[in-house]
């Protein structure tokens, strides 16, 4: 389809062609033939990669888009705390790739990427195939630094689950919580910065408190934190107190919360050089994190363990033609969240389309809203608007912030409803 500038657009309106024009205004109009035949390969079918795939087909339908993801269904990490709280099911937070394929024309390959060669622009797959690409988007999420904690390992996560990648780990933790006797102690070890979903551990504490209050009211929740502060801290602590009394105790890093070693068999955690110990009936240990494995093995991550990118376009600063989005990327002030990944997925789709057309990137903005449930009828949020400025993504001053400290029960209920509405909208925006 021919593209129109504003003058032609209005001219045609006057000529009575408004029906066709307005009828397509919300759909992707082919920008030009320049991008035709370009093959864009996307590694990772989580929120970042799936959004990028969908929006690439919307922005540049003449391109070929292939999404590579090992799993046939994807379970979101966001919302998984609600499963632990007993107010959602695993099915509620699990999504397939049918719409991306049938509605948007994305080719889906269920395989693992084992190598990326940015010089020859090929990716190799575990199944033995290799794929040529013109532009590559890598959205691998996180990987855990299992070995940083004395006594801990990937194997130990089968006893002390992290449940920070949703799926089997979520179900394992849920089984352990259900098997725990009333009056038992649940210990969560919260990860050090930076990590996926900054308010996530604290939402989890509230959701598990909701489950305990309903089923095992004499139980106790202990959060051992290497940090001395956390996201939406005031709101969380006020909400916990109001709804759960003294059930939840948070131990900051400087007061013995910084776990240095573990004994997996006895579910014991040690801090302060072994002078302080905590024994739990159920232990949820969320290790420190880094960019997903393929980012490490393909040289997209730097010494920090995360992937440096041009924060205007998300193109890797280490490998040309490769774009890294989502948790794995170093994205300035943006938190590692499903919402950020969704925002970055759209942005990278626009950046790649414009690049294929030899056109400059438009000045973008990003948003993030992290909703958390303290109880099923008690929601809180933190929001921010971001802009690219002086080489990095920065929060817009005067905008964003957290829910008010003083609010009516009705306000908290409304935010709880929006939390659920947000989940429905964003998952449709990603996979629908």
């Amino acid at each position, binding site marked *: 389809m021919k593209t129109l500038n504003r003058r032609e657009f209005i001219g045609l309106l006057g000529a009575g062609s408004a029906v066709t024009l307005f009828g397509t205004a919300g759909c992707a109009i082919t920008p030009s033939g320049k991008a035709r035949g370009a093959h864009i390969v996307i590694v990772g079918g989580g929120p970042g990669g799936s959004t990028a795939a969908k929006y690439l087909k919307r922005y540049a339908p003449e391109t070929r888009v292939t999404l590579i993801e090992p799993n046939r269904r994807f379970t979101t990490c966001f919302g998984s705390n609600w499963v632990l709280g007993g107010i959602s099911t695993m099915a509620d937070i699990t999504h397939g790739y049918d719409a991306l394929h049938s509605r948007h024309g994305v080719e889906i390959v269920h395989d693992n990427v084992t190598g990326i060669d940015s010089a020859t622009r090929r990716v190799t797959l575990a199944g033995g195939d290799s794929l040529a690409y013109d532009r590559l988007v890598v959205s691998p999420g996180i990987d855990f630094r299992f070995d940083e904690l004395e006594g801990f390992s990937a194997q130990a996560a089968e006893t002390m689950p992290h449940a920070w990648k949703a799926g089997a780990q979520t179900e394992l933790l849920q089984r352990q919580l259900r098997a725990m006797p009333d009056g038992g102690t649940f210990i969560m070890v919260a990860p050090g910065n930076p990590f996926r979903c900054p308010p996530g551990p604290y939402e989890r504490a509230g959701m598990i408190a909701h489950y305990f209050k309903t089923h095992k009211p004499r139980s106790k929740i202990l959060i051992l934190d290497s940090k001395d502060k956390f996201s939406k801290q005031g709101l969380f602590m006020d909400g916990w107190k109001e709804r759960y009394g003294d059930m939840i105790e948070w131990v900051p890093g400087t007061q013995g919360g910084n776990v240095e070693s573990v004994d997996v068999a006895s579910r014991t955690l040690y801090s302060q050089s072994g002078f302080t110990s905590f024994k739990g009936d159920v232990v949820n240990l969320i290790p420190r994190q880094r960019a997903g494995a393929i980012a490490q093995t393909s040289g997209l991550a730097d010494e920090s363990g995360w992937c440096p990118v041009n924060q205007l376009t998300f193109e890797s600063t280490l490998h040309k033609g490769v774009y890294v989005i989502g948790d794995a990327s170093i994205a300035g002030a943006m938190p590692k969240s499903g919402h950020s990944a969704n925002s970055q997925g759209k942005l990278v789709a626009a950046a790649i389309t414009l690049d294929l057309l030899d056109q400059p990137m438009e000045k973008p903005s990003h948003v993030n809203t992290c909703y958390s449930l303290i109880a099923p009828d008690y929601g809180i949020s933190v929001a921010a608007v971001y802009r690219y400025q002086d080489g990095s993504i920065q929060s817009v001053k005067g905008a964003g912030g957290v829910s008010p400290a003083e609010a009516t029960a009705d306000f908290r209920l409304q935010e709880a409803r929006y939390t659920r509405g947000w*989940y*429905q909208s964003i998952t449709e925006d990603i996979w629908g």
Partner: protein
Amino acid sequence: MKPAYFTRILTLSALGLMVTPSSYATDITRGKILASTCFACHGTDGRSSGSIPSIYGYPVETLYRNMKSFQDGTRPATVMGRHAKGYTDEEIKLIAEYLSNIR
């Protein structure tokens, strides 16, 4: 097509809300990129099937006025005040114009 459309465009121009034409020919406009960030909560193309309101297809003046009243706090909100404060007047016009044209 409703005749109201043409009237709306005229009203829009009269209000001085018309934006400068893009200097190059692609439909990846700034308005489109800005508005795409609304879709996480309000659904793709502003069509929400959950508890968050849909925002597509409203008259541009309505969308503009709503964002401005979220921004200055005259319209109470849970989170929209915090979002609206992040945009300039020009950006709000671009977003409102893009969303109003989605059918």
